[in-house]
């Protein structure tokens, strides 16, 4: 009994509320990303986009979801049933798990039973934040691989191989470009990385090339155009989710949009100051409006930055045609990896020089 009382129950409740809200927010955002994608595609092609379901078509994602739920669910006869169901689950799970270490805002302060409480707007501030993200993101390959394998269809399998090799190849330059960043931050902890950018220069100014490589790799990791070869619905027979129907297909597509949201959030956190409000001293603002409002404003600033990135994702998708597979591999192995290595070495040299007081 005493043991139960010793547990900080308020802490558990806080974290639960945070987890539920962040998961549901990312789901809602993914939903409206599909709407935004169609709208962006439409305006870039001189069309109107969905505008029938509700005012300006804002109920369109709900209608799409309902449609996917209503569709007949087909599981191929020769497929491995267990893995066939596991595939989309893995894709969704890995997409959702990454959001755990991203700081979404500053601290919220309130008094509970006469106790001052500070709540971080971050589910888990673990000291290996970036490593965790990398670990979870590379698990995303399993969603693709299992889906393609379990379908028991040679085209699905080939597409899954294609997708897996793409994702694995682009993880390398992504990781190497991050090493350069980590040499500057000196920490893998997401909150420390953001703290280093608050009221100072954003890391994108120190690492423009690193950011660019990271951006290109993020496009490839999210299977977005110009690197959407795993999907390639119009040229290469759709890809690993060819045999999927109904909400299982929906899960794959949905996971892709969540991935887009999370990778935008990661890019904002690592390179664009995270939840920092640009051009304004956050500490000074806190004295004016109080910490809770500051946290809200910071969260808002984070979401605006993320939204800009999501728009960039869509903008690129509706501009650039798809790469050919050999071009994709050439770009990954022959261009991005050497570039990121050069970037890493130069950064290492500069960091070393700075520590030596700019003397050799």
């Amino acid at each position: 009994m005493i043991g139960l009382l010793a547990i900080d129950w308020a802490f558990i409740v806080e974290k639960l509320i945070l987890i539920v809200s962040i998961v549901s927010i990312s789901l809602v955002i993914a939903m409206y990303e599909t709407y935004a994608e169609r709208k962006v595609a439409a305006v870039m092609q001189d069309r109107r986009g969905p505008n029938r379901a509700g005012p300006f078509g804002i109920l369109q994602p709900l209608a799409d979801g309902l449609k996917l739920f209503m569709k007949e669910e087909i599981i191929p006869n020769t497929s491995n049933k267990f893995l066939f169901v596991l595939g989309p689950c893995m894709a969704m799970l890995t997409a959702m798990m990454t959001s755990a270490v991203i700081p979404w805002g500053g601290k919220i302060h309130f008094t509970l039973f006469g106790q001052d409480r500070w709540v971080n707007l971050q589910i888990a501030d673990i000291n290996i934040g970036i490593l965790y993200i990398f670990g979870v993101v590379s698990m995303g390959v399993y969603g693709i691989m299992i889906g393609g394998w379990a379908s028991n269809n040679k085209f699905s399998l080939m597409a899954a191989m294609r997708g897996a090799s793409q994702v694995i190849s682009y993880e390398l330059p992504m990781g190497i470009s991050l090493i350069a960043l980590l040499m500057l931050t000196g920490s893998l902890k997401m909150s420390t990385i953001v703290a280093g950018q608050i009221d100072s220069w954003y890391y994108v100014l120190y690492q423009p090339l690193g950011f660019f490589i990271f951006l290109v790799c993020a496009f490839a990791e999210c299977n977005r155009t110009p690197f959407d070869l795993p999907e390639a619905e119009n040229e290469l027979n759709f890809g690993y989710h060819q045999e999927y129907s109904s909400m299982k297909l929906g899960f794959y597509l949905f996971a892709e949009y969540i991935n887009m949201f999370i990778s935008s959030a990661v890019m904002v956190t690592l390179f664009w100051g995270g939840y920092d409000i640009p051009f304004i001293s956050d500490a000074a603002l806190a004295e004016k409006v109080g910490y809770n409002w500051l946290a809200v404003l910071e969260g808002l600033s984070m979401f605006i930055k993320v939204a800009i990135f999501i728009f960039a994702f869509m903008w690129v998708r509706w501009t650039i045609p798809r790469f050919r597979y050999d071009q994709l591999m050439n770009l990954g192995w022959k261009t991005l990896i050497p570039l990121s290595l050069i970037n890493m070495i130069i950064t290492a040299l500069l960091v070393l020089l700075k520590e030596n007081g700019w003397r050799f």
Partner: protein
Amino acid sequence: MQSLTNRARPVDRKPMTALERLYLWNIAKGMWITLKHVFKKKATISYPEQKREFSPVFRGLQILNRDEEGRERCTACGLCAVACPAEAITMEAAERQPGEEHLYREEKYAAKYEINMLRCIFCGLCEEACPKDAVYLSETFAPSNYQRKGFIYGKEDLLIPHPKEDPEAYRKALGNRATGNASQEKASSN
């Protein structure tokens, strides 16, 4: 041979320069183009709310006309059915009984008048063939339907609303096509 336009250019097969091989400049150009399109005026007409003006010679659904007192003009002569190249029109004639003078203008009338809208090619030959100005093509088109039989339009679908009982609907259905004056104009021009 002289080219039709002066815009033809020989294909450029020069190897790409370093800048071109980076693609970045060209990608930036492409993205600038798509961004410009965001702010362009859209050509779309949001159909049910906004309707496009039909051309003055647009040929739509047939309408069976009435005269000013609301009597049906059609005498079931069958000329429209004969003229119809798609054989879409069927009719059955009947004789007007005493006491029905307020319903039908002539002694003979169409008891059944059907146009199969799936067959109809909207050529307007029925309108030209009609000696009584009873059938003419309006400015509407056939709405969608779930079944084929829904496209066989009977008299109740084709007949114009009564000009006395429902003058508003009558004028709307009449449009600016076969007004009472138009038939006179047609007669005078002949």
